[in-house]
């Protein structure tokens, strides 16, 4: 029963969405709307569940003094701080000038932007060590990266401004992005699309059951 009901729900919902795409009329459109609404409700509940789970794991880590428990303590403290401040400020807690807004603007935003900005350092280091003209394909990739990196920023335009329009780095970068790059992306997307179709069919028909957990 614990496996049969989820399989049934998945099969029915999946089949309705497939049919509704081709026949967007009653009763399939109505059922599709129901299931979309339910998905939003389940999604909202999942966020609460995820947050509570994070708290549970972090509190346990702090109590049992597991490795790096200090970070878990920061998570608990931050979670409680932002939740209490948000709740205390009522419905307008996200408006400019509120304490929640201050925390968002001056703590959360700089911290998370900093984490993302570290990528620049790793990209540079990885490019230095890994971008090698080892063979023909690698050389093509290297040249494409070279032209796109320079062509996508104003300096690429500035240093080739004296050249005819089609030969400037910015135009060359646009050409690479619009044609060879788009063709490659399209091939990948078609492959992914075919994979999604086959996997979805397996899930809808109950052949693929790994999402239920266990074997």
């Amino acid at each position, binding site marked *: 029963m614990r496996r049969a009901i989820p399989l049934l729900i998945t099969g029915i919902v999946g089949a309705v969405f497939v049919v509704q*795409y081709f026949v967007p009329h009653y009763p399939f459109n109505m059922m599709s*709307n129901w299931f*979309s609404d339910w998905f939003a409700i389940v999604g909202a509940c999942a966020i609460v569940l995820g947050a509570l789970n994070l708290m549970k794991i972090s509190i346990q880590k702090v109590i049992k003094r597991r490795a790096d428990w200090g970070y878990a303590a920061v998570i608990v403290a931050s979670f409680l701080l932002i939740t209490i401040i948000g709740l205390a400020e009522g419905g307008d807690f996200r408006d400019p000038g509120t304490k929640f807004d201050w925390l968002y603007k001056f703590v959360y935003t700089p911290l998370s932007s900093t984490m993302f900005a570290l990528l620049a350092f790793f990209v540079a280091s990885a490019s230095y060590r890994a*971008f090698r003209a080892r063979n023909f394909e690698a050389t093509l990739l290297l040249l494409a990266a070279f032209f796109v990196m320079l062509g996508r920023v*104003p300096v690429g335009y500035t240093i080739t401004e004296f050249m005819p329009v089609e030969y400037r780095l910015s135009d060359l970068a646009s050409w690479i992005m619009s044609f060879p790059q788009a063709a490659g992306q399209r091939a990948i997307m078609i492959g992914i699309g075919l994979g999604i179709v086959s996997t979805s069919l397996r899930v809808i028909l109950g052949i693929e059951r790994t999402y239920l957990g266990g074997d």
Partner: protein
Amino acid sequence: MSIRAKELLVLGLIAVFSLIFYVGKVSGWKAVQFSTTVSIIVILLIVLSLVWILIKTIRGSLIERRIVFLYVGIAVALPLFMSLSQKIPISPEVKAVYDSIGELPAGSKVLVSFDYDPPSAPELQPMAEAFLYYCFVRDLKVIMIGLWPQGPQQANLAIEEVFEHEDIKPKNLKYGIDYVNLGYQAGNEFVIQRLGSDIKAMFPSDYRGKPYDEIPLVKNVKNFSNIDYCFNLSSGFVGTREWVQIAVDRFGVKLGAGNTAVQAPQMYPFMRAGQLIGLLGGMSGAAEFEYLTEWTGKGTKYMLSQSFAHMIVVAFIIIGNVAFFRSGRKSRLDR
């Protein structure tokens, strides 16, 4: 010095710098600005040091990874203090977004979906600000939503910034009449699917809790058929791909997008197929759009840093390949 002591020292330095920057921001300190001559001298010194590294590499001495990090840090930070200007070339995909908005008559309803969070804000927030500015300049009505939890907050920050502009202030734009923030809704692509049939079902109230039917701007907006244009700011899932697959393919929405530079290449097939009207890709896309809309924003300001960073990466790729060929194509630059 032990590793723990070094970590604490770095954390302390970060805290001190953060405090100084915060005090500077709230006190309205003016940033130090190098003159053009000083800027050029600094650039020449950096170029000379790179040439020196190249010569060292040719002689067989490899540089350490921390030197690459140092140069990237310099390339990103120093240009912020320089007073150099660059000519920004306009790409066709950015021009397409600009033109498509320009074609909308005044009073048209534009739905903007903020599907990103602060990590991507340095790239996407300038786009959001320039886009909203252009919409308000053209007297378009803006409906904002978020399919990422932090999206509505980013929308508020963009609105706050745009409303400070001297072109926007005299318009005296009113919440609920000229623009509205409907907040966040969980459900990813299913939310987009549902917007096609009933927007109110997904957003029964705005982000402050005001009922949908009491908001003059949207009370007669039933679904996508009442929306003239959609713009998606995205940095991942759920994002532009899902908007194309559902809003465009299913419901025939006119869609433009702004993406992070990492994600933008994946959208080119959609643009080539005509499913996506135009695309602002990364900070350079933001800078191009700012140039077109005449909005003075962070995209243009930060382009000098981006130009420098790209040149540094290209320089190190060249240096790395010199080392690779010099060592008989066997080099492993592990250091």
